[in-house]
């Protein structure tokens, strides 16, 4: 009980900070818009080409936004000299991990929804038909990205050259998540049933579970001194 409550307090504190400063969300929102334009410039206005590349672009944009957004949650603690406060919190540090993970999940889910909506509008893709299966894929993908991102973000916030190291650590580990989400999104956008990509969803779920367990168990070693 205490565990869940402590995680909730971390989540609530960060949500409140975000609501008042709107730092991350605003920046990420415009970053998503910029990415959309960059993709368009890189690929040209050919609609078929864009549609074919859409699932890959969507998740690439999502991961790029994650590289900017995920590292921040712990950086903020350091900048505001709150790191010691987190360290001194009694009890299992896994609760802090879960709280931060929940913040990152909500942040990245918001980014995913915005990105998806923008893609729908700018590239003229009908998303309503596949909204329910897409949201499952987005859920699994966001948990996968946020779970590793939270762990590595806490780590790299204490390191020199963090903006270099964070992607270098996160991206190779995220390969299964990227492959799974892109393949599943591809199938869903083609109108296939989720059962057709069940193996990808299972892989994503398994990856999420492994990352979560490793994150909860090893976080106390990251949040030391």
């Amino acid at each position: 009980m205490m565990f869940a409550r402590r995680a909730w307090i971390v989540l609530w504190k960060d949500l409140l900070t975000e609501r008042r400063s709107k730092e991350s969300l605003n920046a990420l929102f415009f970053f998503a818009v910029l990415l959309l334009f960059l993709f368009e410039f890189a690929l040209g206005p050919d609609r078929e080409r864009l549609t074919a590349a859409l699932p890959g672009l969507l998740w690439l944009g999502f991961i790029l936004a994650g590289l900017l957004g995920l590292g921040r949650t712990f950086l903020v603690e350091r900048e505001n000299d709150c790191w010691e406060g987190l360290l001194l919190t009694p009890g299992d540090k896994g609760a802090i991990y879960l709280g931060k993970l929940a913040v990152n999940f909500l942040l990245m889910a918001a980014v995913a929804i915005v990105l998806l909506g923008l893609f729908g509008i700018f590239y003229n893709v009908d998303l309503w038909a596949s909204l329910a299966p897409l949201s499952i894929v987005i859920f699994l993908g966001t948990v996968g990205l946020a779970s590793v991102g939270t762990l590595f973000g806490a780590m790299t916030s204490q390191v020199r050259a963090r903006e270099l190291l964070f992607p270098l650590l996160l991206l190779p580990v995220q390969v299964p998540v990227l492959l799974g989400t892109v393949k599943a999104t591809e199938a869903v956008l083609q109108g296939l049933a989720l059962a057709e990509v069940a193996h990808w969803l299972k892989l994503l779920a398994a990856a999420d579970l492994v990352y979560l367990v490793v994150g909860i168990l090893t976080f106390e070693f990251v949040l030391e001194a």
Partner: protein
Amino acid sequence: MTRWLGWLAALGLLAGLAMGFGYAPKDAVQGNVQRIMYVHVPSILTAYLAFALVLIASLGYLFTRRTGWDRLAHSAGEIGVVFTGLTLVSGSIWGKPTWGTWWTWDARLTSTAILFLIYVGYLLLRGMVDDQERGARYAAVVGILGAVNIPIVHFSVLWWRTLHQPPTILSPERAPVSASIGLALLVNGVAFALLFLYLLSKRLALRRLEEEIRA
């Protein structure tokens, strides 16, 4: 001890070369190019051994906090990256005349390349943390996550695509290779294992000296 290991490894490698070029028959289809397998396969097996050691040593460090475990993880990680690189390069050299291309996005090539990148990140992390003890902790966490991620990467990339022949050594069925090729591979495998142990003990000694200088 280290010196003896070095001589043993050198002898083993010489024997391996002799076996690979002299004793083992020339491949009927691929010709002499196939002989690169005697470097390629032992390299990747050695790399797997090294990364398994990284996992064990990382767990050992987090549980006991003994610097010895961290030294072992660091040294094994470095050697593992070298041997993974050797695997990729030797595979490329073999692939050009055989497949007609240096690189294809085949499942096993891709997952080996990702393995390489994960552990390069692991080594970079070690270089970027100033505090010794904190670096050891962080590296241990990355070492564990990297290792448990290997099967997930493997399956994701396997389902993504495949062209590489099924593994000959680590497969449940009996290996479909002739006895002489198998023997040449075995000699090379033992030689690479000796080489690994030699490099590991050298690197461990070097790490100890580095720590002395720092202290």
